[in-house]
Structure formats: C-alpha cells, structure tokens
C-alpha cells in the first residue's frame, strides 16, 4: 500500500431531524413544505462515513478524501460552513435536488459521472464510501448503483468496521440480522463501503481545517455542474403523514409499586 487510497465519500444534505416535515405536491412530484427554508444537516450515516474516511486517510500516507455532494448549491454552501470544519476533504459539488423523492437511478447516474470526472482518479486505489441509507430517501440503493456504474465488484453494506492491513487488503464487518456481524476479507481496492454508524464520535469543529477546506469549497461550488434529477420512472399517487398522535395517559404521583404492577400486567397481556 504505497500510494494510499482515494476515498470518495458520497453524502448530501437532509433536513435537520428535529424539523417537522410536511409533504406537498407539485407538478414535478412530491416535496416538502418550505423545503428551501428548512435547516439541513449532513446526512447522518454519510457523515459517519466521512469521519471514518478521514480517520483512514490519516493512518495511510498518500490517501485523500473527496466528498461528493448532490444538492442545491446555495444549501450546500451553507452546509459546508459546519461540515468543512470537521475533517479535511476536497469537495466535488453537483447542483441539483437533494429531495428524498428523487429517483436513486438518476442520482446514481449523476454521482457516478461526477466521480468519474475527478482529475487523477485511480480506480485501483478507490474506496467508495457513503451511508448505508439516507435520512431522506432511505433506500440504500444509490451506492450500489454507483458501484455498478464504476464497475466495482466488491461491495459492503451497513459497515461498522474496516481494518486495513499493510498490503492494502482489508477486513470488513457488516451489520446483519439479530445484532450480529458478517465478517469478510477483501484483497484490496476498489470497493464500495456503505457505512452504518462506524465507531467514531463526531469530530469537534476545527477552524484551521475549516479554513483549509474552504479554499477548495468555494471554487468547487462555483464550478458545480447543474444536474437534472427528478422522480424518474416513479409516479407518486400520494404522500402523507398518517395521523399517529396518541392520547397519552399521564400517570403521576403514583407509588412505584403500583406502576410496576400495571407494567407487569401489560407485559403479560
């Protein structure tokens, strides 16, 4: 492993999870009410992938991290104010909708093209990272499609651990049913790794990293290609928030013993 990896992380923005979402429909398909105004965050699982990528790049000299984001340019710029302070990366921006209702087939086509156009991309060193599913479309489809388009045969989903050996081969742990892990080995790049949480905490903001990243971020945003992504072959019949509000019965000032009895009865019912 003399030259290090080129780690390309696919990740974009999603509405801040604390925001209330309300679907609206338009001739172009469904969207969110006040979508352009909603504060956004970096898609959480993609964020875990980004932190893992940066950590790996730090350990393996010669490695470099790219963050490839498809989203509305103005919102990407806002997002970068925080994300760019976390870890070093080079941004590759594509200007288009980040809606959860766009079709993964189209998004994958655009992202694969953007990755393919990265100057000096060497597929034999490529690790394609991203979240195992987004907090918007939540499908877990896009990375596999990008991998297929880039001809990558080795793919992993819901990854929590990647351990790279000196010769560039690696061991991967993927989440499977029942709280278990599937462990696999791979002889080396290229590979696709769709991350679950991984094991790293969110890095604290580092203004120095921010300044360094921002030098590349502004030009990347400026030259961001416009990409037409929409609902593709999907025809939506309805999008709705089913009423789920419950009439909560609040039990107060009641001895623990009585509460426990009620809970036990309920469990046994």
């Amino acid at each position, binding site marked *: 492993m003399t030259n290090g990896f080129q780690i390309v992380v696919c990740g974009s923005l999603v509405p801040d*999870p*604390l925001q209330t*979402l309300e*679907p609206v429909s338009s001739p172009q398909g*469904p969207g969110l009410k006040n979508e352009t105004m909603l504060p956004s965050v970096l898609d959480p699982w993609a964020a*875990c992938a980004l932190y893992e990528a940066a950590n790996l790049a730090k350990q393996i000299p010669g490695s470099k991290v790219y963050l490839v984001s498809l989203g509305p340019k103005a919102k990407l710029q806002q997002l970068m104010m925080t994300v760019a302070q976390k870890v070093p990366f080079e941004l590759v921006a594509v200007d288009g909708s980040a809606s*959860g*209702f766009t*079709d*993964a087939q189209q998004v994958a086509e655009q992202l694969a093209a953007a990755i393919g156009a990265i100057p000096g991309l060497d597929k034999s060193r490529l690790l394609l990272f991203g979240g195992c*599913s987004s*907090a*918007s479309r*939540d*499908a*877990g*489809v896009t990375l*596999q*499609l990008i*991998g*297929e388009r880039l001809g990558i*045969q*080795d*793919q*992993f*989903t*819901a990854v*929590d651990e990647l351990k790279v050996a000196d010769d560039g081969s690696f061991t991967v742990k*993927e*989440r*499977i*049913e*029942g*709280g278990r892990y*599937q*462990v*696999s080995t791979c002889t080396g790049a290229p*590979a696709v790794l769709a991350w679950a*949480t991984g*094991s790293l905490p969110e890095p604290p903001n580092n203004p120095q990293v921010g300044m360094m990243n921002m030098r590349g971020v502004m030009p990347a945003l400026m030259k961001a290609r416009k990409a037409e992504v929409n609902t*593709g*072959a*999907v025809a*939506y*019949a*309805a*999008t709705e928030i089913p009423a*789920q509000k*419950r009439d*909560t019965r*609040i*039990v107060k*000032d*009641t001895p623990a013993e009585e*509460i*426990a009895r009620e*809970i*036990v009865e*309920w*469990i046994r019912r």
Partner: protein
Amino acid sequence: MILTLLHTQDDGSLPKAALETVSAAISLAQETGAELKVGIIGNDAAGAANAISACGASAFLTVSAPEVASPRYATDAAAAAALIKTSGAEIILAPGTSRFARCLPGAAFRAGAQADTHVVSVKAEGGKVVAQRWFYRQRILGSFTRNATPWLLMIDSGVYEPFSAAPGMAAATEAAVEFGTEQKTKFSGIEAPAADAQTIRPDAQLLFVAGAGWTKKQKDGQTHVGEAGSLIQGFLKLAKASLGSSKSIVDMQSEGQEALTFITHMNQVGQTGSTPRHAKGLSTCCHGEEPHVVGWRFINERRAVNLDPNCGWAQGKADVLYVADAFEVMSKVNEMLQA
C-alpha cells in the same frame, strides 16, 4: 409475470422474511392474474423450493453453486441478476434481508431492472402495481408505481404473514450463472455475541428502550451506572425483551464517559438507528425526542417511564407515560417478574 426471489440460510431453510415475501407474491399474483415463478439462491435451494412447492408457482429456478454458499456481493448479485433475466419477470418481489440489501439493487441494475426497498405494501390498483414505502426515515408515507419494468420490490420484514404449507416436490431447475473467475472478497464468518449476551431479539414481543437517563446523576447527586446495568439486564432476561437504546446512551461510550458497555450502536433505535417491529415497547430514561421516536413507527403499544412530565412521550408519542423514577419502578418490576 411475477418472480419471488429468495435466498436460503446456512442450514438450507428459508428465513421468515422470505416466507413473508412468498405470501406477498401469492396475493399479488392473485390480484393481477399474473403467473408466479420462484427463484432461490443459496445452500440447498432445491430443498427450499420443495418446502414452498405448494405456493402455486409455475416454475422454480435455483442457484446453489458453491459460490453462493455464503453471502457476498459479487456472486449474489450475479446469481440474482441471472434469475431475474432467466425468469423474464416484470415484477420481482424479494425480502429485505441483510443478504439481499447488500446485493439486490446492484443485481437489478445488471438485469436492467429498477429497485425499490423497504416496501411495506404492494397491491394491484386500477391495473397497476402500487407500492408503499416510508420516506425521510418513517416520517412520510408514499404510495407510488414505477413506469418501468422489470421492477424489483424489496419487502420489509414483519408486514406479511409467513407462507406455510406442507412441503412437496418442486422439480426446481438450476440456472446457469457466470460468476467470473476470481473473487476478491471472502466470507470469513459471523460474529455474534454469546447467547446470554445477545440483547437484540427481533422476534421478542417487547422492545425495552434504555435512554441516557440511566447513566445521569440521580436525586442523590450520584450516578448509578452499575445498578442501572443490572436492572436492565435483569429485566431483559426475565421479560425476554429485545434491547433498544437512544443515541445519547451509545454515544457516551465513544466519548469515553462511564457507560453501559453491553449497549452498542446496534441497539440504537431511531433516525440513525433501527426501526424494529415488536408488538409492545417500553421506554425508560429516554426523553422521546423525534429523532428517536421515528424508530418506533412500527411499535404498536407504547409506554414510557420518565421523571419529566413534559418529555416527548407526553406529547402524544406514547399511550401511557409514567412520571416516575425508572430505578424504583424497574426494580419492582423485576421483583414481580421473578416472583
């Protein structure tokens, strides 16, 4: 024509999620009048075909080559793509298991198909197949169709009743698959916690959620992490419950705070965790914030124990909120369950 695409487990049996998908396919075939075929990948696929021979399929196609004995993207995707192409199906229904989540969207791409995942309903409406799935992590439910075939739909587990009928003879046909010569990826094994340390139990009736409150300072000004651990583990054993957690309680470990080490990211429920299906859920010392509660979408009966009468659970997110000290309540609960 509908293909129900399945895989076997290590022992050659079909997972429950596969049997549920068979039920979904049977009912869709009935509604549309379409022909039904079955495709099975993995160890003893022919035996698994026999086990569901009564499902009404006109053909059973299998791939049971040694290459697919264990899950791996390259070989599973090749096998699945071959079955999709060989079958000539317009609609493919497959279970959303981890094995298929790893490879089917890619396989669909190879077979010229388009894939949707996490489907919670599929039926015929006005001559079209209409599916439902959640967007924005269980927050918005979308009904849609795809004007493209083949269309592969991966069905979430827990939605349909598993198919069950006496086994027979399916006379399965083994499909030819080009696997390529060398495989870079090798399956090395499954890592599972020891049986008594296994806290995630998808088939349990009850989900027990532990929140960060268990590790916070209590009314005496002290933390009681050890006591919290034994109360929680004691309860899990007695109630045979599955353990879920909030994000905060797992994050404490990577942040190096005193924590409950048997709780890991795998337990986390919510926006960046799981969305388990259990009949009942009991939340303790967890505030019930929206990013957590979206993971409760498929928990029908919900109760919570929290000191704060204004916590999230009080805002219509639980059926009952007990405003009480979870340490006191759970120690009584354990006593009663033990008695």
